Each structure stands twice: as C-alpha cells, then as structure tokens.
C-alpha cells in the first residue's frame, strides 16, 4: 500500500505493515524529551502512577534538557531545575544536559540534533510543542503534555492518531538572495492560517527544500505547529546523513513517501516568488511583505530561540550587521553552548561574529536558553515589561508572548530582524545585502 513518509514511520513504530490517515495506533517511542517547565510535572505524574521507585522505560531513550528559565533568581524556576537534576541522578540518565554543570547545553530543540538524538525513521515525543522541529531529520516528532509524557516515560508507548498529510512543494532552485527558511514557513502559515493544518502532517519537499542546510530545514519544521500541525517532516537526503552520521552511532532507517501516496492537499511554491516577510502582531499568520509592511517603528530586535537562534541564524544576522550600527536595543541569545562558542570561532568578512555584533552595538549576548521567547520570570533577559515593539526571530507573536500584555512582537527572519535593527523600522533586508 502506498504511504507517506509519516505513515511509514508510524507503521514501523506500531509494528504494522501499513497504516492509513485516521488510524489510532499504539507506537513505540524512540526518544522522549522533557525540560524544566514540563519535566517536574511529568516526573510528578510518573512517580504518582508508577511508584516512587519506578524506573523509566529505557534510560538511553530519555533526554532531559532544561532550557526555559535558567538564568533567573526565581526560586521556583531554580527548584524545577533541581527536580530535573535529581531525577537524572536517581535514574542514572546518560543524556541529561543540566544547567550550571559542564553538561549544560541550552535550548532543547537545538540540543537534540547537536547531541545526536535525532535520527531518520524514529518517533520522538517531547513535552514541548516545537518538538515538531525534528521532522527536519526525516523522523516523526511531536509535542505532548505532561500526562502523555509520563505514560511514555513509564511504558515507552503512546496511542496516537495517524495524521493525514499535506504536501508543500517548493521548487525552482535555491531561495533568492535575502530570503530564508523563516520566510518560506511564514509564507505558508500566512496562506494556511493558524489552524490550516490542525491534526495534519506537513510534508515539505522540492529542490528548494533540498538545497537548504539542516538548520534551515529545522526552522521550517519548527513552525509547523503554528499552523496547528501534528508534525512537520522533510525526507532525509545526503545533507541529513552528513549531519546525523557525525553525531550518532545508532542504526536508523530512512523513509521516503511513495510517489502514489495519498495527500489531503498539495500546494506548490516557486522559489523566485518568495520574498522576505514578517508576521505582524498578534498572530503568526498575519503575514506582510517586509518591503510593504508600512512604516512600522520598532523599539528592539531579538535574535534567539529554537526557531531563530541557531548558528546559521547568527551568521545571517552578522552578514547584515557587519560594518553598520544598530538603531535599537538588539538582544542576542545563542540557543546552545555550542552556538555560543561558535560566535568566537566563525569568521566572516575577516571578523568573528562576536566582533561584528560588538562593533554593530548589539547588547552583549546572553548565555544560552529560551530567554524571552516566551516571556518568563521578571528578570529574564530581553523580556518585555511595557509597550515595546520587538522584531524577533522567534516563533510566536501572541498577546503577551514575550512578557508584557501591552508589548507587540513581529516575527521575522534573522536577515529581516537585523536589517530592521539597523533602521529602527520593519525593513526588507535586501536593502543591505549585495
């Protein structure tokens, strides 16, 4: 029977020859990830339901990556990190990236691939809606709540409905200059609306997608949830394998959709038609072209998060910022310790990223974490407290998302955020790119 890549992975996880959209199947989890804001609740349910001395279903398959509220004086947040640390020690978990120790990494969705936990053909559950990021590696990855996660933690299994797949074909060569993966996904979400893919798999394909780096593919799959999707997915290829094989020794299976697989819809995009876009407040589908968004003044720019805080995002920002001065406060939050270290290792135009950001007048980069992407405790770096308008490389611009209910968030690519930081207004980055 012809199947999509999502169906093939779920069939494998269910131990079945085939599955179809709409089937409810018990699947085996390959990885369960949790962090500091949902980990303690998940652990609490795990202890309540399986017993205080219960062991996780497979210690090799649990990843603990506290990342949300790390660099804060908030005692509850610090207690939650401690709960994760204690659990990792009790369970002797080999993959726990604990704050304030050498093992700390940072944002879970950048940590997972960097540390070799993403593999094609696998099923990953995470207590975070942006777990869909990892579909970029040709795997099924989706966000779940604490109760489902505790169930997986104890049994390794979860009952899920096989989603119908929507195909998004992006073709016609590499993206035009100034256009990034963030623009592609904001374009698609703008077309679909924030519930346009509810309960669906979003499968991205075409030569434009194939030309993207692994980090850019992550950006696309990361925001599938902003259209309501259950998962985003891109079939693995040589770029995927290059990345994976350098980071994991475990075996995995590469799947691709059959040519005659069933899709609930197919939508085509031509690379040449894509331009830098932004999502204006307060919804990720409120798309406008950056060039004609109107004269929108911004108070700050923010570059960070699982969506827009990867090394490729900072390199793009540096390309625009090099040799120029920002006009507004510009907050930089590398997603992980590896990305932070690369600020000093990677040079463009003969300068390190650190030097370029410093010369441009950006605020000194914060240590890696989710930081102000989702507001957080009062003392969170970059959090809004008043009526700020922030252009941001993050994923959500809901009311109050970055802190204050009166502030406003404009979603953009790192190019567009950096260009806007230079002018103090929403700006098409092509004005600054040769």
């Amino acid at each position, binding site marked *: 029977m012809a199947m999509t890549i999502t169906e093939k992975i779920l069939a494998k996880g269910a131990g079945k020859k085939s599955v179809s959209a709409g089937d409810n199947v018990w699947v085996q989890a390959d990885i369960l990830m949790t962090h500091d*804001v*949902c980990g*303690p*609740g998940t652990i*609490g*349910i795990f202890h*309540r*339901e399986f017993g205080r001395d219960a062991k996780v279903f497979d210690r090799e398959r649990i990843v603990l990556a506290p990342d*949300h*509220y790390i660099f804060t004086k*908030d005692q*509850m*947040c610090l207690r*939650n990190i401690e*709960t994760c640390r204690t659990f990792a020690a009790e369970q002797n978990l080999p993959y726990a990236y604990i704050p304030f120790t050498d093992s700390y990494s940072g944002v879970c969705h950048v940590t997972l691939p960097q540390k070799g936990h993403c593999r094609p053909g696998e099923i990953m559950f*995470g*207590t*975070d*809606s942006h*777990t869909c990021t990892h579909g970029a590696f040709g795997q099924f990855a989706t*966000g*779940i*709540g*604490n*109760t*489902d996660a*505790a*169930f997986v933690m104890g*049994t390794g299994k979860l009952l899920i409905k096989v989603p119908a797949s929507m195909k998004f074909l992006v073709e016609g060569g590499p993206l035009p200059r100034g256009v990034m993966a963030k623009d592609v996904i904001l374009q698609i979400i703008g077309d679909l609306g*924030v*519930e346009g893919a*509810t*309960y669906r798999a979003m499968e991205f394909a075409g030569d434009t997608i194939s030309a993207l780096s692994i980090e850019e593919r992550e950006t696309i799959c990361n925001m599938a*949830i902003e259209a*309501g999707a*259950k998962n985003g997915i891109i079939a693995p290829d040589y770029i995927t394998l290059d990345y994976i094989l350098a980071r994991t020794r475990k075996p995995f299976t590469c799947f691709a959709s059959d040519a005659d697989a069933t899709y609930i819809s197919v939508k085509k995009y031509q690379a040449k038609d894509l331009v830098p876009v932004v999502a204006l407040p307060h*919804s990720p589908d409120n798309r406008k072209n950056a060039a004609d968004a109107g004269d929108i003044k911004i108070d700050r720019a923010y570059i960070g998060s699982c969506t827009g805080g990867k090394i490729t995002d900072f390199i793009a920002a540096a390309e625009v910022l090099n040799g120029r001065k920002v006009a507004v406060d510009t907050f930089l939050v590398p997603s992980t310790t590896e990305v932070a270290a690369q600020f000093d290792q990677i040079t463009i135009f003969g300068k390190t990223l650190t030097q370029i950001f410093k010369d441009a007048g950006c605020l000194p980069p914060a240590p890696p974490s989710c930081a102000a992407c*989702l*507001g*957080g*405790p*009062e003392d969170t770096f970059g959090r809004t407290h008043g009526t700020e308008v922030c252009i941001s490389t993050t994923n*959500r611009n*809901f*009311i*109050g*998302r970055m*802190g204050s*209910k009166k502030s406003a968030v404009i979603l953009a690519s790192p190019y567009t955020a950096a260009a806007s930081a230079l002018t103090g207004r929403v700006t098409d980055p092509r004005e600054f790119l040769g």
Partner: protein
Amino acid sequence: MQTIRGKVFITADNIDTDQIIPAQYLNLVPTNPAELEKLGSYALCGLPDNFGRFVPEGQIKSPYAVIIGGRNFGCGSSREHAPISLGAAGGKVVIAESFARIFFRNCIATGYLYPIEAEKRLVEVLKTGDEVEVDLDKGTLTVVATGKVFKLRELGAAKEVIDNGGLFEHARKSGMLK
C-alpha cells in the same frame, strides 16, 4: 444523566495557551496541590482586559464553569498547565467551534476538562454570566433564562477517558495498564 450547570465565560477565536496561562507561571508544578491551586487562580489572566476576569482579583476559584471559545481554542504550546489551570479554577467544560490538537489531547489525558465542539458560533450568541445547562449525554447546551437549546458535537471515545479521570485511570480500567 451527566449535566453541568453554571455560568459561561466568553472568549474569542485563537485563544492561545499563553493567554490561558502566561509562561511566567510555568514555574508552578501542577502535581503539587498548593501550586495547582495557584495555577487555577491565574487561569485566562493573559486575556486582554476587555474580556473581564475569569478568576476575580484576589480569588482562587472562578464563578464560571463553562468556557466558551471560537475557532482554534488552545493553540500554541503543549503546556498541560493550560487545561489544568482552567479545571483547577473550577471550569468543567470548554465549548468551542474548534480546538488546537495538543490542547484537546491534554484535556482528555488529564481528565480535567471536557473539550466539546459546538455547531454554532456561541461566542456571538451568549454573553459572559449567562446561566446554562450542558447535557453531555444529549449533546446540548440550554440557556436557562430563555430555554434556547444549542446542539453540541459528540466527543466520542474521548468522553469515556475523561469520565474515567484521564489517561492513566482509563488505561487501568480498560486493562492496558496494570
């Protein structure tokens, strides 16, 4: 017969999880009873001020048992704190035109709240404070003052999971878990 009688609280389309429970309160752990109560006191405090307060200032419980949403209720984060905070405050049921996937699933897994779809756009026909009776078996919402009846969609197999008290209790009762 399973009915829920109470006042309605009207929201809108695309009520996201940041509005249901702003991220700064995610430092509270729902399995701790004192923190669960506190989470309830913050339910829906991220809504714009013109909606009024679901939980009155200085209180921990809501006078509203029935939350009414538009399309895509609960979009955004996977935080289970969202349905839990609504339930902890005293909410029993959310009736919306449609739900975001993870919120819907979390309602069922936790057993905290019945997520039910309405056939009509109730955010435009009801107002906050209206007394209603929701009949989960018949699939109806009746406005007490006028007797007007609105049809609700069936929750199907998910209803039994919530009736049983959530995923774990259901799994035990049905023999999936020892």
